[in-house]
């Protein structure tokens, strides 16, 4: 079903969209936040990308043949594509980019996305030969990482401080024209852009990323028409925006869920009984109420996920049950709290300062636990502290945060015992076996059933208290025409958008 593309007259149209924070480093090798993912989508392209039905379609690639044993692939590249600085796009760019992503010294955050490639080499200037670690069914679905110009990635290791981040060169529909001095970034349409199947003209000539820290104020700016698009709208502002005919809401299906993570490596939460007791003390709907509408979850998936196990029963909110569990774990209820061998049960809750509404939720959590005798100290951390205390030193008792996944909801890195993002330190051999069977089977029904068992088992192990998934909407002014929003990267089809 080809979408009829109205011949957009480029005109001097400008789209201003608001983000919480301007991205620190505009370099796809080191993308860590959703803000940086969206900016990379504007500036760079990949071998294959999604079409409107989210199926893989060639973008920088012309065509690709998979070998009989499905472990080797030759991709022929398009010859008509040039970088924004005019230099031609060649196979060397692709090879050097993948090598940079795989280089351990560079420590690129996107290394996991090329782990399935064993080796690659140029064959001529416009073809690349891949060797895969395992036979791949549809490798084009995985060749979706962004390609950088050779100049930026030829000397390894690539440094975060390399000047490339100030002047990024891509092949995407927009190029970074200026870091404005009021912390906003302006992107200009790329005249030499070559789109998917012939759609080469870019509907909007300029995009401006404005940094507005306060989400509530972002909604107001949209009403004031000082901003044309918001990527995420607070649930509280939905009613205000919906009744306004100048704004249109787009459901933005992010698979993101909130959790309270225990640190299983140290007391008191190495004891499962204590974890279950704390989770039974929490009244999750009461914590959700002040920050908006959403759905409660019982495991590491969103309810609309095929892997969500609707049969799993949530832990009851039961103070008496919690007391018996604590007694079983060796705690006695003193006058002002729980004591075990003379030591008072007190935990620190760490939360990320820039996670919107984190303050309200943490304070609610604290008052609920303190009402039942658990002493709680709150520790709001900004970005550098978060990475150091929580990720590097694992110096936390209980952490409140949110995970966002793309469509495949691959939670292996989070819960596998050797997972790179296994924050809680969960070690469950049985669970690892389930992950391995899920990965090895090709039968979707078996994989679905296995992941539902993973859901149940993670629920029972309780490395985390699974809280909720929030309704997330993007809001765009009605002056933006022909809008289709990509669920994860947002700007994938932005070149087809037009401004009135």
């Amino acid at each position: 079903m080809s979408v009829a593309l109205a011949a957009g007259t480029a005109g001097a149209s400008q789209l201003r969209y608001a983000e919480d924070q301007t991205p620190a480093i505009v370099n796809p090798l080191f993308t860590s936040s959703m803000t940086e993912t969206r900016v990379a989508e504007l500036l760079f392209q990949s071998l294959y990308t999604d079409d409107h039905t989210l199926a893989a379609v060639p973008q920088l690639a012309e065509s690709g043949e998979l070998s009989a044993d499905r472990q080797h692939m030759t991709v022929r590249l398009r010859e008509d594509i040039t970088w924004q600085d005019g230099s031609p796009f060649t196979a060397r760019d692709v090879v050097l980019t993948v090598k940079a992503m795989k280089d351990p010294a560079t420590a690129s955050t996107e290394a996991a996305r090329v782990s399935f490639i064993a080796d690659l080499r140029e064959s001529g200037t416009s073809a690349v030969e891949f060797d895969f670690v395992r036979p791949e069914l549809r490798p084009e679905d995985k060749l979706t990482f962004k390609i950088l110009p050779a100049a930026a990635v030829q000397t390894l290791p690539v440094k975060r401080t390399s000047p490339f981040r100030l002047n990024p060169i891509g092949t995407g529909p927009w190029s970074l024209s200026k870091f404005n001095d009021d912390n906003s970034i302006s992107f200009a349409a790329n005249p030499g852009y070559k789109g998917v199947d012939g759609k080469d003209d870019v509907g909007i000539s300029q995009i401006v990323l404005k940094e507005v820290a306060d989400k509530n104020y972002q909604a107001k700016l949209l009403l004031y028409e000082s901003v044309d698009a918001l990527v995420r709208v607070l649930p509280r502002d939905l009613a205000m925006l919906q009744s306004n005919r100048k704004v249109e809401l787009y459901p933005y299906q992010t698979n993101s869920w909130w959790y309270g993570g225990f640190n299983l490596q140290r007391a008191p939460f190495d004891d499962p009984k204590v974890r279950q007791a704390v989770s039974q003390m929490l009244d999750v709907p009461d914590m959700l109420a002040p920050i908006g509408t959403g759905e409660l979850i019982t495991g590491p998936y969103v309810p609309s996920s095929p892997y969500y196990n609707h049969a799993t029963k949530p832990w009851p909110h039961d103070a008496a049950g919690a007391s018996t569990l604590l007694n079983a774990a060796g705690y006695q209820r003193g006058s002002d709290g729980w004591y075990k061998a003379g030591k008072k049960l007190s935990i620190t809750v760490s939360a990320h300062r820039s996670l919107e509404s984190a303050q309200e939720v943490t304070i609610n959590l604290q008052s609920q636990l303190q009402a039942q005798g658990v002493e709680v100290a709150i520790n709001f951390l900004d970005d550098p502290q978060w990475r150091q205390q929580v990720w590097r030193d694992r110096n936390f008792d209980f952490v409140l945060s949110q995970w966002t996944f793309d469509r495949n909801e691959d939670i292996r890195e989070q819960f596998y015992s050797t997972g790179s993002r296994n924050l809680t330190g969960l070690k469950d051999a049985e669970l690892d076996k389930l992950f391995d069977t899920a990965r090895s089977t090709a039968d979707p029904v078996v994989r679905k059933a296995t992941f539902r068992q993973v859901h149940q088992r993670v629920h029972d192990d309780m490395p985390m208290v699974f809280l909720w998934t929030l309704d997330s909407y993007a809001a765009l002014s009605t002056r933006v025409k022909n809008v289709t929003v990509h669920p994860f990267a947002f700007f994938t089809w932005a070149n087809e958008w037009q401004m009135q």
Partner: protein
Amino acid sequence: MGERVADAVSTAAERTATRRASWLTPVAGGALAWVGAVLLVQVLVALAPGDAVDTLPDPALRAQLALDWGLGRPVWERILTGTVHGITGAWGSSWTVQPGADVAGMVGAAVVKSAPVLLGAWTLAVVVGLVARGRTALQAATAASALPVLLLTLGLTQGTNAAVWYGMQRGWWPRPSFFALPTEPGWVRDAVVIAALGIGSGALGEVAARFAAADAALSEAGFVLAARARSGSDPAHTSSAVRQLLWRHRVVPLLEASHAVFSPLVGGLVIVERLCARPGAGDLLWRAVAVRDVPVATGVVVALAGCTAAISVAVELARRAWDPRLRHPA
């Protein structure tokens, strides 16, 4: 009412001190103050517990910076080299704000962006301070400066937005270009920033109080009484001679006031620029502190200290040029 004999010989030590009234003393004084400030910042940063570098997430960056800044060296050596770098302007490169960028360039550009706001706020404070002569005006100035800069900025920005939006809804006026403060740059946002900084930082109250005190002292000075007596009998003559005399003598308190209010103004700058999302030295400092970029943070503080020291030298030179008693000591 006792009369007393002016003991002509005050203590000898102090008399020699004022003899060197040449222009050299204030400049040397200012430079010494700035070097002292740089040293103090380095001492505070070095001695305070914990090292900012280990909050950086990126292990490679951490190792490379530990090397660059020689964090392993003894404390006094770090302070010394830090001070030398601070003075010579070799402020190193930014860690995390714009990794790799030269701090001196960043800070210089930021200070240039903040200069008009500082100047505007200072002028506002001095002009209103001078004009607020009458008793009610004086009280109004002091009362206004009780409002902290936070509330003034929020009030002005939100108030303007609400008023303009109200009018637009009713079609009274088209959409103004400056609309939706503080995201739209423009002269209106700068006016709000200057008003909030000038009044909110307490500069206005300070200047008004100093001028009032100076006037009270002047009113009892012998030569003023003589001038008033002289003109008292000739009404046409009353005001101009006395006023001209008084204005000549208000220059000195004006200069002192301008030096005294510069520091609170620069302090308030950080808050106003952050609340009004206006780029400048204050905003850069805030951003550097948020991402633990110690070189940029110390660079901005040292630069602001330099500006304050420069202002104090300029004021001192102006005072010497204006007041013969300092120019040719007895």
